[in-house]
């Protein structure tokens, strides 16, 4: 007698279940980029399959199992994890230059406390050294370009001589090496017309901090000598737009700004067309350390409302932690040998830790230049930074948003938890809620029943590419 063995279905995707309203559950397989919403019976049948129970073969559920097969949750090939892990000596092809700690504004919530700390200015030779290092790495690695980013700790354009001289140096070096070169800056937008002209004609992009509503901008981002900055920033943005410079706008939301967020977003979207509009709750760091948190449910509600307002004006708003469509084991470059130079020539892995005398500098500064002008790296610190990926965070192991947020910001985690072990923060709640929105939107856009993945995922999406660098 022949015995026919029916093979039981197998759960082949890391699958999460998120309770929703009306006794419904979001079933999300992040690495397959698929999701649907079902009732308790749907979830429990999936558990039957996971546990190998006899109900896993019940013919009454064959359609459901086939739906899960279409979603890659049952009986699919193993799913690769989006893990990138760096090793060896850093070979960055992108340098971020912290040109100065000086600033022409005195923002109430400045994480860098610019203006309260000792003024430091990067000398051109420090910038040249960093640029030459990344340019030669790019040439040796066969990359088509290297990149230079001017960033803060202060307002980069305040150190105008080093900014322009280093750009000229990079342009010449790129020609000499026969490779491309791109450059961009973060700025508060309080610029002279001559600076605006130069930026439009020389840089490839700018990230402008602007809070939208002129009243709030003037209140939270006053000039160093007093007076609001809104009219100058509006002028700069208008000139960037007229000049065709790709620019992004970053809106910082304090607790008192939350009720006005919609108004701010409408103000921006009705006047400007940034390539990207990013809305972030203010960090409780630096000058804003003891201020009320904006990482709240009120922020989430305001963000949702602002999203509706932005879309009505043809724009989308983003929050850095909610990134459905992007799979990664890291939040930013801190685990990926991000190469930022302080005014003194130290190498930091984080945009927010820009001076060697800062708290946690011994965590983030992982290199310096020696007497011969060569970069030397601290292997122990580098290894610690490289290890801060979400796949190594025990706290995140059962969170549905982990492969999208990548474990969030290491620096903020240290400031909140005060320990090396990630323990989550108020941002996690914001991230999960806004990530959930994005998944539900994906389902709705896909016809309402199930999201079966994006066809136009960003280039950074690394699913399927398990590689060690």
């Amino acid at each position: 007698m022949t015995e026919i063995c029916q093979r039981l279905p197998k759960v082949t995707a890391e699958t999460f279940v998120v309770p929703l309203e009306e006794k419904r559950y979001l079933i999300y397989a992040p690495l397959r980029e698929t999701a649907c919403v079902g009732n308790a019976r749907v979830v429990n049948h999936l558990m039957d399959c996971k546990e190998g129970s006899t109900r896993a073969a019940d013919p009454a559920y064959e359609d459901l199992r086939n739906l899960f097969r279409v979603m890659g949750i049952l009986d699919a090939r193993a799913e690769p994890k989006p893990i990138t892990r760096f090793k060896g000596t850093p070979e960055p092809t992108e340098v971020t230059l912290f040109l100065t700690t000086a600033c022409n504004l005195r923002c109430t919530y400045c994480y860098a406390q610019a203006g309260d700390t000792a003024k430091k200015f990067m000398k051109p030779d420090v910038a040249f050294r960093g640029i030459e290092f990344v340019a030669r790495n790019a040439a040796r690695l066969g990359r088509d370009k290297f990149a230079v980013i001017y960033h803060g700790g202060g307002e980069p354009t305040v150190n105008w001589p080093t900014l322009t001289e280093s750009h000229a140096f990079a342009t010449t070096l790129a020609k000499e090496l026969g490779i491309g070169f791109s450059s961009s800056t973060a700025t508060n937008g309080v610029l002279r017309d001559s600076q605006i002209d130069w930026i439009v004609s020389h840089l490839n992009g700018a990230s402008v901090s602007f809070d939208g509503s002129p009243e709030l901008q003037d209140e939270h981002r006053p000039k160093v000598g007093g007076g609001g900055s809104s009219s100058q920033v509006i002028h700069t943005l208008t000139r960037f737009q007229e000049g065709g410079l790709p620019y992004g706008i970053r809106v910082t939301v304090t607790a008192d700004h939350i009720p006005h967020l919609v108004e701010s977003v409408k103000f921006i979207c009705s006047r400007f067309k940034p390539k990207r509009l990013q809305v972030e709750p203010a960090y409780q760091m630096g000058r804003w350390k003891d201020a009320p948190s904006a990482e709240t449910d009120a922020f989430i509600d305001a963000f949702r409302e602002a999203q509706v307002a932005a879309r009505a004006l043809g724009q989308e708003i983003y929050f850095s932690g909610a990134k459905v469509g992007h799979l990664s084991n890291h939040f930013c470059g801190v685990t990926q040998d991000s190469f930022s130079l302080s005014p003194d020539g130290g190498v930091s892995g984080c945009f927010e830790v820009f001076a060697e005398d800062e708290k946690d500098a011994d965590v983030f500064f992982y290199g310096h230049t020696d007497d011969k002008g060569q970069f030397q790296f601290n292997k122990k610190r580098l290894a610690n930074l490289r290890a801060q990926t979400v796949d190594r965070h025990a706290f995140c192991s059962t969170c549905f948003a982990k492969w999208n947020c990548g474990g969030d910001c290491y620096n903020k985690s240290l400031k909140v938890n005060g320990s090396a072990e990630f323990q989550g923060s108020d941002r996690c709640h914001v991230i999960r809620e806004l990530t959930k929105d994005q998944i539900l939107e994906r389902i709705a856009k896909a016809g309402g029943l199930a999201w079966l993945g994006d066809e136009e995922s960003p280039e950074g999406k690394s699913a399927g590419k398990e590689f060690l660098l």
Partner: protein
Amino acid sequence: MKPDYQLKRVEEDSDDAMAEISSVSPSAGQNLTRRGLFASIVTAGAALVALTEPANADTAAQKKAKAKCKKKKGYKWDSKKKKCVKRSSSGGSYCSCNLVCTCDLVYY
């Protein structure tokens, strides 16, 4: 508290006699009260039929072109135009909470 969204059994009640898929309304993520999130409820079978027979399914040629496009560096498949298009790029490739991308969204 550590978040826990692992797949596990959930409590069923008398309304859960059938496995049902909920259709998500287009206002998902925009509805502040989160009421009316679900437009309708369908059986798994109906959902499966709807998903495996999309009205605007790609033709065999388009499927082939899409697969080829996905392997081509610097290009992406435009599902609306049904063709391979070059990714635009400008500005730096770094995006973070402190530096807004001005290029296509490219993370480290």
